[in-house]
């Protein structure tokens, strides 16, 4: 508890100010609490760099169809330009006999052989996430090679590409579940804490009953009734099965934060600024959501990364058990399941688990740094 060294020579600013001629004093830079905390977060290197890494990877993962795909970016065929990544062309368009999507890697070899100046521009990694590469020498799963650094899985699909797509799926899923779970949980907690009394009593009992429902059995029952289907060619966010699973998980995930927000509301609503706001005629919803909520968000922000971790793990677990997203959605859990069935194929065990571990670790680092950035006791520990 030592004072800063400069303290004894410090002149109290009020006294000092009255002695200097009345010049225009530039007021201290107006900095909100959030800016302050973000600045502190940025100082915490490990968490901040993890945040940058995860954020960058996540943003990039939305452009994966342009980076790792078996569909060409640009085709110049008979002098005309085609953009297959944006528009579907049947194989016959490019003189191939197959039904459906053309084999663009084959097309590239064919067009290069003709020497007419036609060409195909493939993505940097020319393999799709759901494409079975059955033309390799041995039968799948194939061990890592120069072309497929992480090997292929038991259906001959490139593990690296599937892991990359799986990252997008996992993060998107976890963020969606967390968002919806928190939206509902925070609203419920706010209502319980603000209205208190009978609302609180009744609400808590409902939550207790609800949280005692066995989550896993519910999932099994629902997925045996509503058979999740994979709609090929559709963007991930348009898959109804994704939203079904998000809804189910969010429905079982909101109770945790509710108790924290309820407590925050109980504490905050007794504070003077709330009374002062009521006394100025602010409406009830204004008090709840404009005045109290921003002061009650600390648990939301500091728990969110850990909830994301939990939800990534939840999806992996569900996929592993076969109750997750329908095949052939690129999924980490499904790959880990394959690894368990093929324990001798080390690349099916090592890479999916490694990627899962790394992601969870980085997100935990972020969460840790956020928690520390929100810690008001800056000097609570001896360093």
């Amino acid at each position: 508890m030592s004072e800063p060294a400069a303290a004894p020579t410090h002149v109290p600013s009020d006294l000092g100010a009255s002695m200097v001629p009345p010049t225009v004093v530039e007021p201290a830079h107006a900095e909100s609490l959030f800016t302050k905390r973000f600045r502190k977060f940025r100082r915490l290197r490990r968490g901040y760099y993890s945040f940058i890494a995860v954020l960058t990877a996540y943003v990039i993962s939305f452009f994966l169809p342009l980076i790792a795909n078996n569909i060409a970016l640009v085709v110049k065929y008979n002098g005309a330009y085609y953009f297959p990544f944006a528009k579907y062309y049947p194989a016959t368009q490019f003189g191939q006999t197959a039904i459906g999507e053309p084999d663009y890697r084959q097309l590239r070899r064919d067009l290069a052989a003709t020497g007419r100046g036609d060409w195909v521009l493939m993505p940097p990694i020319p393999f799709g996430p759901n494409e079975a590469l059955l033309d390799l020498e041995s039968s799948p799963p194939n061990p890592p090679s120069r072309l497929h650094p992480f090997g292929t899985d038991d259906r001959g699909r490139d593990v690296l590409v599937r892991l990359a797509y799986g990252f997008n799926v996992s993060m998107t899923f976890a963020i969606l579940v967390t968002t919806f779970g928190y939206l509902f949980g925070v609203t419920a907690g706010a209502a319980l804490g603000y209205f208190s009394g009978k609302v609180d009593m009744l609400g808590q009992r409902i939550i207790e009953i609800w949280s005692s429902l066995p989550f896993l059995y519910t999932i099994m029952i629902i997925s045996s009734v509503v058979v999740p289907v994979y709609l090929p060619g559709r963007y991930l966010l348009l898959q109804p099965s994704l939203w079904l699973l998000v809804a189910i998980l969010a429905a079982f995930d909101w109770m945790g934060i509710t108790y924290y927000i309820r407590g925050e509301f109980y504490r905050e609503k007794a504070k003077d600024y709330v009374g002062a706001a009521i006394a100025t005629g602010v409406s009830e919803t204004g008090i709840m959501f404009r005045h109290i909520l921003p002061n009650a968000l600390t648990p939301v922000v500091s728990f969110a990364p850990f909830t994301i971790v939990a939800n990534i793990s939840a999806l992996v677990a569900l996929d592993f058990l076969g109750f997750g997203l329908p095949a052939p959605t690129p999924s980490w859990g499904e790959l880990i399941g394959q690894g368990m069935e093929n324990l001798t194929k080390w690349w099916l065990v090592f890479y999916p688990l490694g990627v899962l571990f790394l992601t969870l670790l980085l997100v935990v680092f972020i969460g840790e740094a956020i928690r520390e950035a929100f810690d008001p006791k800056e000097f609570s520990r001896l360093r």
Partner: protein
Amino acid sequence: MNQLLSIRGLRTYFYTESGVAKAVDGVDLDIAEGEVLGLVGESGSGKSVTALSVLRLIPDPPGRIVAGEILYKGRDLLKISQDEIREIRGNEISMVFQEPMTSLNPVFTIGMQVMEVIQAHQQVSKDEAHRRAVEILTEVGIPEPESRMKQYPHHFSGGQRQRVMIAIALVLNPSLLIADEPTTALDVTIQAQILDLMLEMKERRKGASILLITHNLAVVAETCDRVAVMYGGKIQEIAPIDALFKEPFHPYTHGLLGSIPSVDGTKARRLTVIPGSVPDIHSLPVGCKFVTRCPYAFEPCPDIEPPLIEDAPGHWVRCHLYPNGGKPAIPND
């Protein structure tokens, strides 16, 4: 003078596990237009609860206004709807609280908090609200209001925050300002400034009244026109300021005045102390609430509650020693 606010038979009880606390038990009080009325009493005498009852800010549960009426410009504030009382709060009647350090929301800028009141009650554009916020902050003496509007409460000192609270309370030109111990939490040097500011702001708004709640008789002497003394949830004495200080009627008021040092007196005087402490609010005496501490208590006091009577013009007292022909019944030492 027209009565702006008339409180009649107000009873606010708190229902707690240890019984019913009759914090306010039959208070009658009038505030005239343009008047500064002081409401004085010890902690727990019910003065703050009276003020909160006016704006219906009593937390329910555990508190409830069980009886009485509060007539504001002829309307009973206890009978109107939630929306109507919300319209009155901050607009017609506003309040300044004791704790400037915690009465502002820490996550919003000062500007947002001043503008919020304006926009809660009037359909004005953001620019107009901003302009008026700057105006009122200038008026309450915040230097460089434009740039300070962008700052957060933690950039302001206690005195400045109380200035902001007064700005928020007065920006819509209310007819009544309730100030609940507005200077208690401030430095002595700042206290006078804040009181002056409140009176100055009142002067500029002709006809505005102030209900000043305090336990500080010095504050009352400087600022108020009339004083009501509360004890045990009841008004014990109401008098014009001069009469109360020169000839206090009630033994309790007498005790209060005897417990403050005077600087003008020539003879050295021992400060007197009111013996005992405020009785437990759950078990107040049946008769006079002050009987347990009153040096003049006699036979009817413990059992019969004295009525509030007007013994001298405008000078009301609740004590069995009165009527006494408009003179104090207690020797002035």
